[in-house]
């Protein structure tokens, strides 16, 4: 093999390696990109049915129920226009409570219940996840003046 061909081969191999790595990176990135929806968008059917996404809102007062002695818990999150029921089996974070903003990761089942794999509440009393704060703020602005039906 001439040195020239050898160099060409090396360059080709490096190029191939880099493109495979880049393709894998893009693919992995797409697979792990999770969209966020507020309850209104979920009710409007904008959220995907077949993949994991995140939903966030305020836990509705009085909505947390569980069968005594079981890890299964159900509650409702709301953006004060629409609400989505969530079911979760596992340990809830310390700051989870009614009236607190939370974000849940999971998917929708056939009956429209969001089955959460993970529930996050933030570790600050005054804290609300920015997504939730923003969607609540938007609603507050839209609600009084808009005169929507």
């Amino acid at each position: 093999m001439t040195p020239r061909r050898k160099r060409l081969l090396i360059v080709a191999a490096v190029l191939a390696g880099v493109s495979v790595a880049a393709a894998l990176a893009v693919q992995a990135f797409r697979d792990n990109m999770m969209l966020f929806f507020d309850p209104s968008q979920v009710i409007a059917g904008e959220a995907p049915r077949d993949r994991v996404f995140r939903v966030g809102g305020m836990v509705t007062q009085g909505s947390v129920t569980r069968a005594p002695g079981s890890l299964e818990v159900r509650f409702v999150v709301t953006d004060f226009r629409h609400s989505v029921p969530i079911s979760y089996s596992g340990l809830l974070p310390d700051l989870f409570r009614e009236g607190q903003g939370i974000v849940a990761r999971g998917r929708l089942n056939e009956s429209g219940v969001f089955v959460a794999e993970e529930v996050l509440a933030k570790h600050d009393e005054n804290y609300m996840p920015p997504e939730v704060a923003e969607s609540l703020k938007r609603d507050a602005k839209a609600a009084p003046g808009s005169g929507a039906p």
Partner: protein
Amino acid sequence: MIPELGHFALILALCLALVQAGFGLAGAFWRREDWMAVTRPAVAGHFVFVALAFGCLVASFVANDFSLHYVAMNSNSALPTFYRVAAVWGAHEGSLLLWIVVLAAWTLAVAIFSRGLPTPFGARVLAVLGLISAGFMTFTLATSNPFLRLMPAAADGNDLNPLLQDFALAIHPPILYTGYVGLAVAFSFAIAAMLEGRLDQHWARWTRPWTTVAWMFLTIGIALGSWWAYYELGWGGWWFWDPVENASFMPWLIATALIHSLAVTEKRGLFKSWTLLLAILGFSLSLLGTFLVRSGVLTSVHAFATDPARGLFVLIFLFLSIGGALALYAWRAPKLGSSSGFEMWSRESFLLFNNILLVVAAGLILFGTLYPIFVEWLQLPKVSIGAPWFTWAFLAPMLPLIALLGFGMHAAWKHARMAQHKKPLLIGLGLALLAAIVIAVAVFGSAAVLTIVGLTAGLWLLYSSLRDPIARMRRGHSLSPSVLGMAIAHFGVGLFVIGVTGVESYKIQKDMPMRPGDVAEVGGYQFAFRGLRNVNGPNYVAVEGEFRVTRGDREIATLHPQKRMYRVQQGAMTEAGISVGWTRDLFVALGEDLGAGAWSVRVQYKPLIRYIWLGALIMALGGIVATTDRRYRTVKASEPVSQGAGAPAGGVAT
């Protein structure tokens, strides 16, 4: 009175920092010895007044001065004194002041230990540090003053966030900041070299120990944060790819690349402009991290109060410092080219790969961290990037890095003859593979491909980092601290890899309802729930569970996990019960009362997890050892120091 004194001291310190910056830069530019001579006393004064301001804030916390807004928001009369001190950096304003005091301390250390530097160069380094400090002090005074009074004074304080009432987290910020801010020193050395328009091997020798020490603090700081997250958040994870974790990890990756490229610049005079770029990037990522944490653009455990003015200020500061540094780099770096070359098989090329892979890892993590912000800025649907992507983005460059590390340590500079090392290293690799399979199958009972790869890599690293020092000792050669430090640090990497592989491959987690009297079996251990009792702490009440852990007939431990309710903030907190061991951790956390006499309980078996933090500590130890090398102590200027020729040549450069 004390807060006003602190406020005033901070303003004075700002003035002195400006004096330090102005006289340093102007003096070096016009070669005015008398102007440059002003910088050192200015540094001393700057430090004294910053320390005074910080001391005043600490005193206000200890004395429970709730007429101070910041104290009232973050402390309470029932808070133990130790945490009252730690509460100083428990929120935004105080942690900025901590940042400033740490920077002032680094600057003072540079002023003391860098007397051997050529005067204009030293003046420029101190001037750049002064500019950075002035920027941060202006930020603090303008948007985040911790010395503001509350009218009328509060009767008692709001208390410190219960999550922060913990020993590891009390010392985590100061150590992490020491690392973060320490990168400012390498940055200033880089800026000063570019202003001088000259960069030689002496420059690398001066910069190296400072960078290594900063890197060492960063390593310990990140490890402490990870350890804290593990036991205090109650989740039992050790890394979450949380944006703020990433914000501290990216500078670490760049700093790691920097200490390696500095080695090439010092030994061979190569990679000059690349080293400069890394020094700029490392500190830029520290600043970016500060921006991400402080501006509230990120959803994170660590994100403090959101205030657009603060975000904007940090953004402008970020733009000016990073933009300015990069512009200077674009202008000056081309003049600092390297002349000599190296061959394909040489330590230089191994270190080149090291640098590429570390920077790629940092770049991918940066991309994943910023992408959601970018998308939000474009008004597209909100997204978040899942942890698996970060794991992938980190592992992909790290696996080849670890594979190259074992060989690279044995490669000579310029032209390596790998033939003599090839056989023993390959034999070592074979033995490591064999041991990995035995450990995986015989001890843990299963073997996935990635597990075997991880264990093999870790064991092989342990072997190859010890091989060279042992061989040298056998031959009766002395071992220089730099060689020893390198071996120790890489041994730490090996332990870390083993720990990560072990815990990620074989961890077991069970969430379940348990009633007193129930026994759970996890990882071959029996966890018997014996009952609950109430406990009173200084500022909290708690329910404490008792779990007796046995393995067959053998008594292992009795664990007491708690669920605390802090009185002032009414926040619940989980304190896990952990049995620590060389081979595994056993972890029990109480969830909540499920009714019908049951509690939700998380029981975990975490094999080898301690090696993650032990590995990190040993890496840091390697850093300390390397900086004690004698050649850093006799700092010799490359040009005769015209004035003060009698200055002691022995500034200890650590």
